[in-house]
Structure formats: structure tokens, C-alpha cells
């Protein structure tokens, strides 16, 4: 296959990483660092266009209601207002995605839904116009609990969708592996319990925004999102796609598919408004931080688990509502354990909960393993990390089977045991064996309970992805990596540049990832998102190798005669005459003869003459062709540990120390990798201990939907975070690497119930674990 060296291993995970270069190096300057620290990085909110108008939303003031009368005439008459786009405008087809809409297309409204969009010459005018809109509504029943909505006597919430039932099957109807009844029959003990989550939200950073400008048939769109291709596809109704320029500036923290409904639709509304007014329009959705809910917000989990007295689990049955414990979101209890019998049902309902967001997601599926380890360990009086180790495996098979039937044929190192390695390292850093104790047995001299929490699961970005990238050498020897924007904050631009530098032999400082923004490069898979680096590193390696080969070929050949703009450009002799490409090499942007390194030319010296020829592209489909395998198994693990104190009088939790250990397979940028670890720890612990929206039970309206009322972790909320890296090479991306971006935020989201149980000896399986719940468990409230 072009781009792969002769004699190289078949599978990309077995390709050795170049040594002594940028890969794996610490203190590599982030390529986006200066822009972001100096304030010169441009985000979508920083886009201003000549003659630009501003637009804002009229949202439902009720949690569930119908519009009886919507009078926008006064707003329309206000000087400076250019348009009021109503939900019932016959000339507008409001966007929908997966059946969900930002702008209601009926008179049926939920909290967060939009009924009108006001477009005006300034934000101040738009704000004034919104206050002039007269709205009469009929309030409808509010149900805040998914299980309440499923009761037979519950009012029908969406008769327009289903007049008979609120029930909505969710990614189901079920997932079944093995024989669940047999598993319970084999068990020495069977236990049951319920766990719940409350309502955490994105509480994001750059609120949703979209900018659109029409230029004749052409359309320019600036989108605050992380997936270029999805947004581009969504713009199909508005213009032929080859007439749309879609720009993705830097993203003020998305953490995932929060973009799916609200953000994509915000950009589409900007397009609709720009078409209607003939002016550039910026749509500002300032309230979007708190609209919607995390994918597992308000979830209910009913567990039934059977196990042997030695800690081996024989059966896990889970009935869950609202949670995304599905195969499509990679069910960790199946992917990363040897538990042979699993039966999961997932359901949802029409009730008073607006859009689903997912950010640093996978919490639902991590929660299943965390809860199972905690409760089985609790019943047996064992250390939960030992339960995790005993039940480690892949898709129902133990690691002995995996070694023989997966690692060996796929070329992985059978001596590496990811679960054991992350656990041992994490426990050492945490001094776990010294600090862990039986639940509720350690009270500190200050009168507080001492608790140790633990979560371990499979790394879920362990697969290799589909991606595409172009590489161009400019006339000055600088190099562009051409791909879609990949900024999710995780230093993707830096990591791709590191790989390309080492694989091509070009100086890191000479490489920049030039995002595809409508006018350059290829429409390629995004480098960001859940798969991140593991998804797009394969194409980066291949494209880089192709470019290196091309350079070495071209410098051994004379440059042919060619015409440019009618001018005849003379041919020129080869830079390395009478040499073959294999006799040459390139390092640090210097091409040299291997046998005589003093015979050398810099890339800048040759690029002026050859720039017309130095252009390659690669598109790699995962799982197909050479280098693909039919099935990829989750063999890389992560473990997180937390040490807390619980005040028995107030129920307050103090987080003393947190340790995250991730097996990155092979880490490209350790500093960025650590960034996802400590960043995830801060976010996950925040979600696990404090983040929730509180709703008025009568009106169903959120009471703390702002950053004053909605608590998030800040600098002093966690005393100490230690991050450690294990590299087993057990990922499927090049060099055996895997991604880390989702992990810490989701795993630490589920950790606090385990720590609190260890502290007080009582289960508090309701997240976030707030002081009132602890006091209740202690019988004090």
C-alpha cells in the first residue's frame, strides 16, 4: 500500500512510533497556545460582518404550554427591527434533527423551545423588541420524572406524537448477552438496588451562536460546533453545498454533542434570517448553557446482580430509564469485562425535559460498572479495585482468552495487562492499600469520615477511525496539514503536527494544521470529537509518509519544463542527481544522503522549485482493506481514585486528593493527555458532587439556570490532582495508541457514591451526592 514502508507490520497499531522526535515529548508548545493566551484566537462570537444584524430567541416562559396568542406586531414596528420570524411563518421550514427542534413547528412548547426569532440592528434593539411581544399561553401538565410519565394514569404529554402513550423506546428495546437466568442460577448471591441521577447540564463556555451571510447564490456560515461535516450536511436545504463556505472558528468548550440540536439549529436560524433580511445575521443564544440536559440527566437504574463469593460476577440485569446504556454508546459493562451474562433494557418517555446534550459523555455506561463494582465489593467486604481486576475481560471473555484469541492473532503484546497496570500505578500514587478501609470504619481526629472512591473501566476511544488529510509543502518549505477544524481544546492541532513532523522528518515549527474553512483543503473527517486523535491519526501517518516519499523522489529527478501563466519555466537538474530516493532521508526539514550526510539541502531550498509538485492526500477508511480487522476489542483500561472527608454534621464533602491513571496505548502529547485527565477530573468531580438544576415542581421551571446558581468546580474545589500515564500499546490506532478525551469527565462523574459509601458505610446512589443526601443517609435529615 502506498505510503507504508516495505516490511512494515500489517496493522497500524504495530507500527513503531518514530523515536527521538516530537512524539511523546513533553513541553511541546501548543500551536494554538499563543493565540488563546493573548486573546487573539477568534471564536464564533468574535465574528462581526459589515452591516451585520443581531438575532435572539423568544423562548417559552413555561415548562410545557400551548400558544394561544402570539402578537409580534409591536416588536415588528420598533425602529431598528428588521424581521420577526415566527414559529408559524408559512414561508419557513424550521430545522429538525432526529425529531427534535429548537424552534417549535407547532404551538406546543417546552421550556427551552423557541417560538419567535427577532432580528434587529443591535442587541439592545432586539432585547427591547422581545419585551414588546405579547404572548398568551395555555399551561399544560408538567411531569419532571420519567417514571411518573410512564405510569398508566399519567397525562399524555405529546398527543401530537402519540395520543395513547408517553412511552418512547430508547435505543432498544434491549441488549442481551449470554443467558441471564443461568447467570443468576450460578450465583452464590443476588442483590438488587436502584441508582438515580439528577439534572446536570452543559453549563458551557461560549453560548451557542451562528453567523450567516448571503452573497448572491453563495452562503457564508460561521458555526460554533465541532463537526464540520455534520453541519455542512445540515445546510442542504439552504443552498447547493458547493456554494456554501462553512467556517468553524475556535470553540469555546463544547465537550461533545451539545452541538447536536441547539447549536446546529442556531446556525441554521442564522441562515434563515440572513436570507429573509438580505443582511449578515448573528444569532445569539445566550441562554443555551442551561437549555437541555446531559444524556443521562434524570436517569433511573434498577440493578440486579449475581456473583460468586470470590467476587466473580455471573449476571448483570439492568432496567434503566432515560440513561444511554446502549451498545451504540459502547456499553462498558460488556465491552470491558468478563461478565458472561448481561441483560439491559433502556426506555424513555415524553415528559418535561428538553433536548439531550452529551458532553464528555458515556457517564451512563461508566456508571453501570462503577455501581456494580461498588455494590458487589460492599456485599463481600472487598476492595472494589479487586472486584474490577477479578472481572476484567472483554465481551464476556477473561483475559486469558483475550490473550490467546485476540492479542496473539492481532499482534498485541500478551504480557501487558492494562487493568492490572493502571490499578497498580494508581494505587501506588494514592497509597490506596494503606488508606483504603472497610466502609464506615475510619473517623479522622477532626471528627470527619474518611472515604476512598474508585472507578475503572475500558478506554472507549480505543478504535481506529476513518479520516482524510492533505499535505502541501509551500514554496518557503513550510508545511500545511489540510483537514477540517479539529479544535475541541484537546491540542489536536499540536498532536497532528507532532505526528507529521516525525513521520515526514520536517521541523515541528514548520508545520501547521490549516483548518478546512471553505476555501482550502479537503472535506475530511473531523479531527475532534469522541474519537479524536485515535480516529484521525492513521490518515495523518499515511499522508505524512506519502509526502516524505514524494519529496525524496522529486529531489532525485530533474524538474521538467512547464508552463505557468503562459511563461515557460525552464527545467532544472535534480537536487540529488544520480541518487535513488532510498539513498536519501529527511530530518528536521533537511534532506540528506544517508551515506554522506554532508550532502544535504534544506526543505526550504528545494521547495521553491518543487512546490507545484509537493502535494498529497490520503483518505483512510477504518476496518477495510489492508490493516483492518473485523472486530476491535477494548483492551485498554483507566482507573480513577479519590480520597475525601465527609463532615457528619453538615454532610459536606472535602476532596483531598484525586488520582487518574489512563492507558493511552502510546501517548503522542503527554501534556495534552494529562490535560484531559485533570480537566476531566475537575469536571467529573463537579458533576458528581454538586452540578444539578433544581426545578420548581409546580411550574417545572429551572430555578438555578445561571452560573451564579449552578455550581461548578473552580480552582480551590479540589486540593490535589495527580495524573499518570500507562502505555501498553493495546489501542488500535497507529503505534497502539488510543484517545482519552471523554474519559475523566465521565468516569469521575460516577465516582462520588463509591467514596461516600466507603466513608459513611451507607449507600448514597444518587448523583450529585449533595450534603442533604448524606445527612439523610446518616439519619440526620
Amino acid at each position, binding site marked *: 500500500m502506498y505510503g507504508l514502508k516495505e516490511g512494515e507490520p500489517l496493522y497500524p497499531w504495530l507500527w513503531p512510533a518514530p523515536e527521538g522526535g516530537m512524539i511523546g515529548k513533553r*513541553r511541546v*508548545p*501548543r500551536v*494554538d*497556545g*499563543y493565540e*488563546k*493566551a*493573548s*486573546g*487573539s*484566537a*477568534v*471564536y464564533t*462570537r*468574535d*465574528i*462581526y*460582518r459589515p*452591516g451585520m444584524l443581531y438575532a435572539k430567541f423568544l423562548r417559552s416562559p413555561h415548562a410545557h404550554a400551548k400558544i394561544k396568542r402570539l402578537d409580534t406586531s409591536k416588536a415588528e414596528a420598533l425602529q*431598528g427591527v428588521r424581521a420577526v420570524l415566527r414559529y408559524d411563518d408559512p414561508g419557513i421550514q424550521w430545522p429538525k434533527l432526529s425529531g427534535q427542534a429548537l424552534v417549535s413547528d407547532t404551538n406546543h412548547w417546552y421550556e427551552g423551545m423557541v417560538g419567535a426569532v427577532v432580528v434587529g*440592528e*443591535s*442587541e*439592545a434593539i432586539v432585547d427591547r423588541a422581545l419585551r414588546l411581544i405579547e404572548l398568551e399561553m395555555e399551561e399544560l401538565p408538567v411531569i419532571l420524572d420519567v417514571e411518573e410519565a410512564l405510569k398508566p394514569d399519567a397525562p399524555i404529554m405529546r398527543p401530537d406524537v402519540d395520543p395513547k402513550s408517553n412511552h418512547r423506546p430508547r435505543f432498544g428495546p434491549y441488549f442481551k448477552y449470554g443467558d441471564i437466568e443461568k447467570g443468576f442460577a450460578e450465583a452464590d448471591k443476588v442483590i438488587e438496588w436502584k441508582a438515580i441521577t439528577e439534572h446536570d447540564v452543559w453549563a*458551557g*463556555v*461560549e*453560548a451557542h451562536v451562528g*453567523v450567516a451571510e448571503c452573497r448572491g447564490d453563495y452562503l457564508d456560515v*460561521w458555526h460554533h460546533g465541532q463537526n464540520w461535516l455534520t453541519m455542512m450536511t445540515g445546510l442542504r436545504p439552504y443552498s447547493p453545498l458547493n456554494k456554501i463556505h462553512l467556517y468553524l*472558528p*475556535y*470553540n*469555546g*468548550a*463544547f*465537550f461533545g454533542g451539545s452541538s447536536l440540536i441547539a447549536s446546529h439549529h442556531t446556525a441554521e436560524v442564522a441562515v434563515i434570517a440572513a436570507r429573509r433580511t438580505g443582511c449578515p445575521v448573528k444569532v445569539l443564544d*445566550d441562554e443555551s448553557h442551561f437549555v437541555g440536559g446531559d444524556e443521562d440527566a434524570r436517569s433511573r437504574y434498577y440493578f440486579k446482580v449475581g456473583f460468586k463469593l470470590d467476587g466473580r460476577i455471573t449476571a448483570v440485569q439492568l432496567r434503566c430509564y432515560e440513561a444511554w446504556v446502549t451498545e451504540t454508546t459502547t456499553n462498558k459493562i460488556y465491552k470491558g469485562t468478563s461478565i458472561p451474562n448481561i441483560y439491559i433494557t433502556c426506555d424513555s418517555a415524553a415528559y418535561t425535559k428538553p433536548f439531550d446534550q452529551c458532553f464528555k459523555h458515556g457517564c451512563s455506561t461508566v456508571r453501570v460498572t462503577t455501581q456494580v463494582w461498588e455494590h458487589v465489593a460492599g456485599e463481600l467486604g472487598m476492595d472494589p479495585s479487586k472486584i474490577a481486576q477479578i472481572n476484567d475481560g472483554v465481551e464476556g471473555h477473561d483475559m486469558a482468552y483475550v490473550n490467546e484469541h485476540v492479542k496473539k492473532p492481532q499482534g498485541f503484546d500478551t504480557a501487558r495487562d492494562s487493568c492490572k497496570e493502571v490499578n497498580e500505578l494508581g494505587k501506588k500514587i494514592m497509597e490506596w492499600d494503606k488508606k483504603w478501609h472497610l466502609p464506615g470504619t475510619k473517623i479522622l481526629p477532626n471528627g470527619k469520615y474518611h472515604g476512598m472512591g474508585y472507578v475503572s473501566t475500558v478506554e472507549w476511544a480505543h478504535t481506529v477511525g476513518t479520516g482524510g488529510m492533505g499535505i502541501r509543502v509551500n514554496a518557503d518549505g513550510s508545511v500545511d496539514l489540510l483537514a477540517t477544524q479539529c*479544535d475541541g*481544546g484537546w*491540542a489536536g492541532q499540536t498532536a497532528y503536527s507532532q505526528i507529521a513532523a516525525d513521520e515526514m522528518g520536517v521541523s515541528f*515549527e514548520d508545520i501547521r494544521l490549516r483548518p478546512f474553512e471553505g476555501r482550502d483543503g479537503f472535506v475530511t473527517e473531523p479531527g475532534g470529537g469522541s474519537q479524536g486523535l485515535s480516529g484521525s491519526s492513521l490518515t495523518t501517518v499515511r499522508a505524512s509518509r506519502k509526502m516524505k516519499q514524494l519529496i525524496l523522489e522529486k529531489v532525485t529527478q530533474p524538474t521538467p519544463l512547464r508552463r505557468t501563466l503562459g511563461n515557460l519555466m525552464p527545467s532544472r537538474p535534480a537536487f540529488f542527481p544520480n541518487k535513488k530516493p532510498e539513498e536519501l532521508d529527511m530530518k528536521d526539514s533537511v534532506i540528506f544522503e544517508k551515506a554522506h550526510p554532508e550532502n544535504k539541502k534544506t526543505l526550504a531550498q528545494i521547495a521553491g522549485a518543487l512546490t507545484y509538485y509537493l502535494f498529497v492526500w490520503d483518505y483512510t477508511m477504518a476496518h477495510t482493506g489492508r490493516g483492518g480487522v473485523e472486530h476491535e476489542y477494548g483492551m485498554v483500561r483507566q482507573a480513577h481514585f479519590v480520597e475525601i472527608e465527609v463532615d457528619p454534621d453538615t454532610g459536606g464533602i472535602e476532596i483531598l486528593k484525586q488520582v487518574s491513571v489512563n492507558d493511552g496505548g502510546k501517548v503522542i502529547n503527554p*501534556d*495534552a493527555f494529562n*490535560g484531559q485527565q*485533570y*480537566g476531566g*477530573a*475537575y*469536571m467529573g468531580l463537579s458533576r458528581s458532587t454538586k452540578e444539578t438544576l433544581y426545578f420548581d415542581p409546580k411550574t417545572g421551571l429551572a430555578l438555578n439556570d*445561571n*452560573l*451564579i446558581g449552578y455550581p*461548578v*468546580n*473552580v*480552582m*480551590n474545589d479540589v486540593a490535589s*490532582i495527580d495524573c499518570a500515564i500507562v502505555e501498553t500499546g493495546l489501542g488500535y490506532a497507529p503505534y497502539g495508541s488510543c484517545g482519552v478525551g471523554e474519559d475523566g469527565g465521565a468516569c469521575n462523574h460516577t465516582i462520588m457514591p463509591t467514596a461516600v459509601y466507603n466513608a459513611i458505610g451507607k449507600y448514597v446512589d444518587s448523583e450529585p451526592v449533595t450534603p442533604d443526601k448524606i445527612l439523610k443517609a446518616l439519619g440526620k435529615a
Partner: protein
Amino acid sequence: MPREEKKKSAEENEKDRSGGISRREFTIASMAIFGAASVGEGKAITQVANKKLAQPGIASQATAKLPLTSSARKISLTVNKWKYEVYVEPEWILRDVLRDQLGFLSIKDMCNGYGACGSCTVIMDGRPVLSCMTFAAECDSATIETAEGVAVDMQDLIEAYVMNHCMQCGYCTPGFVVTAKALLDRIPKPTEGEIRDALGGNICRCGTYTQHILAIKEVTGNA
């Protein structure tokens, strides 16, 4: 490494990378060009605005259409050593004037104007203030520094931020940079406790908090 030595070394390294001209020298040269136009004249803003207008998508005085009423008043501001005169309505907040009127886009808004996140922090007359909680009309004659100014005045702080990965998405980073600069102006060698106290009000949803401590310690030689 002592701070001055480190600063020099960083500058030399950059010179090596960029063919003999450091970013600092380039910036100083640029400031000299615009500074000459700005001496004693608030109208210099048009120079900046027009300069930025050439870049698509960047705010400028020419593109920000805001209505002025008879209540509007003229204020003068010195921002990053530049002198400006602008008309402001009584209810306009400093953040919007600095962003929309003057084009200082480092000033961000995360909390929708609740004063909860620190992303809009600027140094005003030596103190860090939340520009979203400050009426522009009350800032007449104020001297203001934004992250753009810190990037010129304290390049070693920016470099420490870059090397320590103090940013992920980067949206909140200018607010941290400005708060850190205000701290270092006040306490040249802060302890970890003082750093934590100073930055404790800034929200970073990506969770980069630990790195700011490292960067500030590094830049002050306390690492």
C-alpha cells in the same frame, strides 16, 4: 532560571526560529507605528479599527451599529496604552464597549453577564475588575489593560501559559491571563495560596486550574 534571564532566553529562541526578528521586537515596532498616530489623539482608534476591518469577521467601530440617544456621553479611556474617546449610553457595560466598539475581542462572556466567570476581567487602574459588571459611563479617564496588552507587556507570562497548557478551548484563558497579570503587578512572587485566592473566581470548564499555578510559579522563578 531567573525571570529576566528566562525572558531573554525565550526571546533568543524565538529569534532563532524566525530569522532574527522576535515577536517582541516585531510587536514593539508595530506599536511604534501606531503609537505615533495615537499620541494625544483619541481618533487613533480609527487606525486600529480600519486595520482590523481588513480582516474579515473582526469587530470594528465602523461595523458595530449601536444607537445613540441624548443620554449618551463621551468618555475617554486608555486601553493598552492607547487613548480612546467614545460615546456611551448610560446603560452600556464596559465589556460591550471594549469588545463591540473598540474591538478588544479577548474580553469574553461565559456567564451571560452575571459576573460569575471572570472571562471578561480587565485591569482597570491597577485592579482586576469584571467588565460585565461595570458601567462604561463610570469609567471616564480610566486606564485599562486587556489580554492583548498583557501579551505585549508580559510576554514571559504568555509563554509560560503556552508551555504549561493553561488553555484547552481557550475561551476563558484571557480572563485568567489578565487576573494573573494583576496579581503579579501586586505581588511579584506570590505563594500558591495567593495564586489560588487570586484566580479562585475564574471558571475554566475544561479544568485547567492546576496549570495556571504552575505557569505563574514558573514565570516568577518559584517553580
